[in-house]
């Protein structure tokens, strides 16, 4: 049940209500019961950790995803068979974190696409289309020309066009998902003015942001999501920063994380003042000792993956140095990184971690072709088979044989194959990016055991994860990133979810 105190004029009508929304993707429960209400003329903040279910909730409200259970009511009427077109027709608009304009169309065309309707063969009234666009742009305080190609605009300019688009759709419910993520201070200020103006006109606004100061500035009420459940809804005036963080994290560490006892060795890997403007990494420094797991925490978009990519030679570095066992490495390509003894298991396993059309054997030996072929490059089928079977046995990959295609494996087993590929290269440093993303609970625990064993064998491991519990459960130390910088370093026994989140929000 919802518990909240409302400090709004009683007279404003209830616009939108979500009741006990549930949604699972396979074994992953994204939403396990979210209830939520929204009044006209209200800015309602939605907060929660990465993976708490905010995006899924938005997708359900906008009709992009169908809920497994629960109902959505608009003005007291149940929305049935929701779809993006239907939601828009009902006056539910959304502005995403990243603008999604058609880059090759003009601003006016982009705006028109969102609102004009009628026959596909109707004549386009260019003059009124341009006039309408100009008017909307003026309303949001943007100075871009309606004839500008959307792709030629800067991110903040594009974001303002997105907002103009939403205005044009005559939104009664406006959902803003991290709208200031790509805006500077000045643009953000004009966005806030606009939000206020819309509220005054009775638009109901759902506002999602990690930046709490914005919420305290704008929001009337706030709903906290955690693990797919709406924990609490309260008036913004009744909560403090600390309350919000406590409610977002809210649970104790349990014992799913087997931290293997390891004695840490010498410093193996050291990064000094690494900067890469292409990837947005600023002055990153860190050290990892043999047998140590360094957790890299931070919000989505804080630059953790980018740091890993910079280390792996995926973009040129401006400054900084990378040392392995005290020796300076020069890494200009992934091939250099592999040679130097680095291994990188990327995020989004199905896209770049394993190659779906190839067999387990080929996938697992792909980064160490030298090992299964002689000096002239001839493959040795027997060695290959043996190595592949070894890794199947060692990592517990569940598959009929080494010839099974990667596409026929479960997520957990694909991840094991991705790990196997890199373990075969005998790396000194292993970089894991979201190692358990989209893996079911049982397999997660197996992967944790595996990571623990690898650390115990003396590897230096850098583990990126958005799951605070995973970070706390496995890491020896935790580095926290925000806006491309490492903003804090915590020892295992000092780290708490609250502390990490506070740092990540700086």
């Amino acid at each position, binding site marked *: 049940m919802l518990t909240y105190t409302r400090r709004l004029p009683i007279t404003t009508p209830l616009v939108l209500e979500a009741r006990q929304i549930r949604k699972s993707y396979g074994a992953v429960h994204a939403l396990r019961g979210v209830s939520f209400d929204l009044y006209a003329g209200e800015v309602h903040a939605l907060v929660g950790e990465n993976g708490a279910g905010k995006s899924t909730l938005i997708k359900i409200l906008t009709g992009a995803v169908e809920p497994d259970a629960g109902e959505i009511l608009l003005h007291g009427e149940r929305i049935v068979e929701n779809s993006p077109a239907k939601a828009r027709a009902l006056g539910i608009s959304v502005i995403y974190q990243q603008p999604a304009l058609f880059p090759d169309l003009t601003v006016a065309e982009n705006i028109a696409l969102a609102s004009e309707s009628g026959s596909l063969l109707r004549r386009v009234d260019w003059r009124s289309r341009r006039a309408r666009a100009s008017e909307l742009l003026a309303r949001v305080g943007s100075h871009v020309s309606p004839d500008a190609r959307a792709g030629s605009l800067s991110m903040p300019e594009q974001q303002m066009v997105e907002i103009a688009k939403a205005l044009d759709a005559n939104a009664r419910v406006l959902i803003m998902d991290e709208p200031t993520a790509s805006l500077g201070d000045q643009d953000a200020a004009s966005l806030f003015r606009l939000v206020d103006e819309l509220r005054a006109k009775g638009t109901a606004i759902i506002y999602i942001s990690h930046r709490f100061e914005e919420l305290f500035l704008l929001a009337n009420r706030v709903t906290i999501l955690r693990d797919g459940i709406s924990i609490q809804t309260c008036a913004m005036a009744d909560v403090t920063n600390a309350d919000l963080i406590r409610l977002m994290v809210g649970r104790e560490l349990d014992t799913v994380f087997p931290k293997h006892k390891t004695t840490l060795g010498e410093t193996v890997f050291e990064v000094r003042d690494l900067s890469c403007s292409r990837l947005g990494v600023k002055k990153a420094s860190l050290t990892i000792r043999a047998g140590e797991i360094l957790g890299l925490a931070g919000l989505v978009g804080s630059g953790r993956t980018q740091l890993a990519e910079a280390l792996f030679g995926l973009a040129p570095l401006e400054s900084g140095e990378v040392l392995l066992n005290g020796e300076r490495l020069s890494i200009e390509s*992934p091939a250099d990184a*592999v*040679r130097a003894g680095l291994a990188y298991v990327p995020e989004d396993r199905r896209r770049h971690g394993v*190659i779906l059309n190839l067999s387990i054997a080929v996938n697992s030996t792909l980064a160490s072709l030298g090992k299964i072929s002689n000096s002239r490059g001839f493959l040795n089928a027997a060695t290959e088979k043996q190595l592949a079977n070894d890794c199947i046995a060692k990592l517990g990959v569940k598959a009929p044989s080494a010839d099974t295609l990667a596409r026929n494996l479960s997520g957990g087993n694909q991840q094991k194959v991705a790990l196997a*590929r890199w373990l075969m290269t005998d790396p000194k440093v292993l970089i894991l990016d979201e190692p358990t993303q989209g893996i079911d609970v049982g397999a997660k625990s197996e992967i944790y055991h595996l990571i623990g064993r690898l650390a115990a064998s003396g590897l230096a491991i850098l583990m990126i994860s958005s799951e605070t519990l995973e970070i706390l459960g496995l890491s020896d130390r935790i580095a926290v990133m925000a806006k491309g910088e490492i903003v804090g370093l915590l020892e295992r026994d000092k780290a708490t979810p609250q502390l990490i989140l506070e740092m990540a929000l700086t």
Partner: protein
Amino acid sequence: MNVRLEREWPALGAVAALYLFLAIAAPSFYHFENLRDLALANVPVLLVAAGMTLVIVIAQIDISVGSLFAVAGVTFGVFVKAGLPLWLAPFAAILVGAALGAVNGGLISFVRAPSIVVTLATMIIWRESLRWSTGGAWIEDLPANFQWFGLGQQAGQAVIVAIALVLFALFWWASDNLSVFRAVYATGSDSEAARLAGIPVKQVLFGVFVLMGALTGIAAVLNAVRFSDVPANSGMDLELKAIAAVVVGGTPITGGRGSLLGTFIGVLLLGSIGPALTFLGINPYWEKAVQGAIILATVLFDALRMHRARRLAIA
């Protein structure tokens, strides 16, 4: 050797059916002279299709090979006429082929231009440069030992077919046993994943196009010595024949999969249609239509299979 016939069996079945039918309906098809002519006529396509298999497996395309074939053939003739020893001239022509392949490969891998556009441009440029520089004239008055490498017709024919088959077999063997071919398949499946696995994706891509050029050069040389003169307009439609054979052999145009065995079957199937029609007493004008139908059938078959696989996956 890793023979699984997952994607090759439709073409293999068609070849088997065709040859069985010919054995009953037109046994004279199996006369030695006919089979020899069939093999000789398909030597260029076979070698070019070998290279094209790799190009398509790596998820690219090369439509300049027909023009490249003509350039390499003329170069070969010019070198021989200029007095280069007959054992050396082929290598010079192959080198020219590799160099032109390197132009394609460089633009595609390092400049990142799309292969269909790059090779469309070089297809036109090479064909037209050749027309301009030779004025359309054939390379004539070649030394007497040019034709059949001076071995006489029978031995020459045998040598040409043997070279082509041995090369193809080597290539096939290598595709299963050389680690660099792993890199080709991985790159064709997912070049970003391959890059993250430390594979030098650009160099591999470049190498494939150089190899394509060199193989086309070899094909041009083996084709040229069948005659006493070198025409300036050879290799017309060769790229289409090669691509067709690769596709019919089960290599998907989207790359990442496919085999040289399949390509061999594809060349055999498409190359046998013309002679088969003749021996069956059907107007050989139908050859292209039948070949087109085979290509269409391959694609339809693949689409159906994908559809069924997807339905099974959902169920």
